[in-house]
């Protein structure tokens, strides 16, 4: 029974990260209708930059700076590759963002090499843990879940309570109408890339002590994040949290039935299953999905 909870906690931890990546997907998708296949690279960049900066800066400062750097990268990507395209087709955007993800990964390879890196635990150490009724939970797991929850709450507040957030949602709903209201739609898209880069980087930094980070750790995360985004219904961030938990827990328990080597294939099989059966996602409505552009 303890094992059950241990696996459950592991599943929730990974689920939180998947949800954070999925929310990054959703923010950009909602503002532009683009799936940014380079989303996982933001997570990798956040982790990598934080580790490097932590070499000569205190941990909190390193993380904040890493988030700032990744946010700038997000803005640069949008300005260089997305902003000036006139009504690009979906296929074209898919290929461009895949190209961008390859580019970021290769640049990371040339900067940081193939070494696996990690941040120190925010509090305590890798061996210390908190005992909750027989289940041992590492303090970092609480950090991941806490920061994840905080990020989701902050984003929800941003999109519902602030003027800027409302303007972004207006652009997502109808760009032309928003433009008529005097909203600068172009800047909103840049902002959406910056926000999703920032949230990706936060996720990357906070999970880095547990999962480690490497130049190529972005792609698997992007695939899982996409799975979760689809599972929850593309564009719906609250559902993404639920879907993230489902995928994280399923994956965690899959080790009982299948060899660990196939763990990666599980989430993809789930993704394919969902795509085949209900592309609108388990929480999404087929009615709304039909109106979306793919």
């Amino acid at each position, binding site marked *: 029974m303890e094992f059950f909870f241990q696996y459950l906690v592991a599943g929730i931890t990974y689920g939180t990260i998947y949800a954070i990546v999925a929310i990054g997907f959703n923010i950009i998708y909602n503002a532009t209708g683009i*799936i940014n296949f380079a989303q996982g690279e933001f997570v990798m960049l956040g982790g990598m930059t934080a580790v490097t900066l932590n070499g000569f800066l205190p941990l909190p400062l390193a993380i904040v700076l890493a988030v700032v750097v990744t946010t700038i990268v997000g803005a640069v990507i949008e300005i260089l*590759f997305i902003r000036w*395209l*006139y*009504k*690009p*087709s*979906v*296929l*074209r955007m*898919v*290929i*461009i963002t*895949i*190209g*961008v*993800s*390859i*580019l970021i*990964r*290769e*640049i990371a*390879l*040339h900067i940081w090499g193939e070494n696996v890196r990690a941040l120190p635990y925010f509090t305590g150490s890798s061996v210390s843990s908190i005992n909750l009724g027989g289940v041992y939970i590492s303090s970092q797991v609480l950090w991941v879940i806490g920061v994840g929850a905080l990020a989701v709450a902050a984003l929800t507040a941003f999109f519902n309570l602030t003027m800027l957030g409302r303007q972004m949602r207006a652009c997502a709903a109808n760009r032309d109408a928003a433009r008529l209201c005097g909203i600068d739609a172009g800047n909103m898209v840049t902002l959406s890339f910056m926000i999703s880069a920032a949230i990706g980087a936060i996720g990357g930094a906070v999970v880095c002590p547990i999962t480690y980070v490497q130049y190529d750790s972005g*792609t698997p995360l992007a*695939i899982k994040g*996409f799975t979760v985004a*689809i599972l929850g219904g593309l564009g719906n961030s609250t559902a993404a949290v639920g879907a993230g938990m489902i995928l994280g827990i399923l994956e965690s328990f899959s080790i009982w039935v299948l*060899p660990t*080597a*196939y763990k*990666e*294939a599980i989430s*993809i*099989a789930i*993704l*394919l299953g969902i*795509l*085949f059966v209900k*592309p609108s996602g388990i929480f999404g409505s087929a009615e709304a999905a039909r109106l979306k*552009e*793919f």
Partner: protein
Amino acid sequence: MARRYFAIAAFVGLIVAIQLATLATGTGYYLTQLTMTAYYSLVIVGLCMLIGYAGQISLGHAGFFAIGGYVAGFLTTFDLKSHQGAIVSLLSNSGALVSRHDVYGGSLLTVHPWLACAAAILLTVVVAYFVGGPILKLKGHYLAMATLGIGIIVYRIVLGTEFLGAADGISEVPGFPLPGGLLITGDSSSRVSNYYLAWGVVLLGMVLLLNLIHSRIGRALGAVHGAEDAAEAMGIPTARYKLHTFVLSAVFAALAGVLLTHYNGGIGPSEAGVMKSVRYVAIVAIGGMANLWGALSMSLVLNYLSLRGYFGTYDDAVFGVILILIMLFAPDGLLRRHLFSDLKRIVSRDPAGEEAP
């Protein structure tokens, strides 16, 4: 009609000219990479048919390549001597098995390469039909992600499966015997014949695809690409044509995998990697999405340069940059449209250049 055969003749001329040039300059070792280029080109032209003519992207073709290569590699290296049984003796009596010696002189009883090739193609057809049905109902992001997913599943399976050699892959795959005493093998003594064999296979594939494009089916595919709903309304079974093109391109990839595995004498999991799939798409994109000759010539140049290691550690990055630049500036490919008018339109943002979603 005449133009089609003129292009084929010109290509044959190029292939012969390249070989004669290496002969004259004493650089015969280039033929090794050029032969491998030929097999990769087989994947490219098949994928070009799918992307350019049926309008469906696949980011998982390295998976089909790997299915072909791994089935052929496994069946021709797996020793059946210790697995005697009804099926083995039946196969043995029908001449489907060959005994040979491995590099250490031990005797092996393995499946005949032709039978292994047939099995590889058969498995590919089954897999492609099985996944193609539901996958091709998807569009845009979903289709890209689903095909990428198929590729990754194949990669994970070959990487995690012990009897497929896990991270080491399969080695010591024998040559592929052809009628007339020819053998597809990486042995340097038969370098020239293998060069011509490989490009001969590619040319056969090209003739097949070119004829297909200029047939009724090809014109129907053009209609599907142009306006799917209109094509459906005209009575073209769009779903079936898309599926058949998907299966055909998968078979091209698998055949390339089979032949290259025999040529290289082995296959590893990196052949199934995502980067390989992306690279195939990049080459089709730069060659002009719906331009078989463009894709083939770009494949000849880029695959060769990559295999010769001209890009060094920037190999993957080069293909990433190619993808981005092509998609930003010439989404219909370099060799299809006039680059300058494309650029002019992008700069002036003329809505007439707006592409169909």
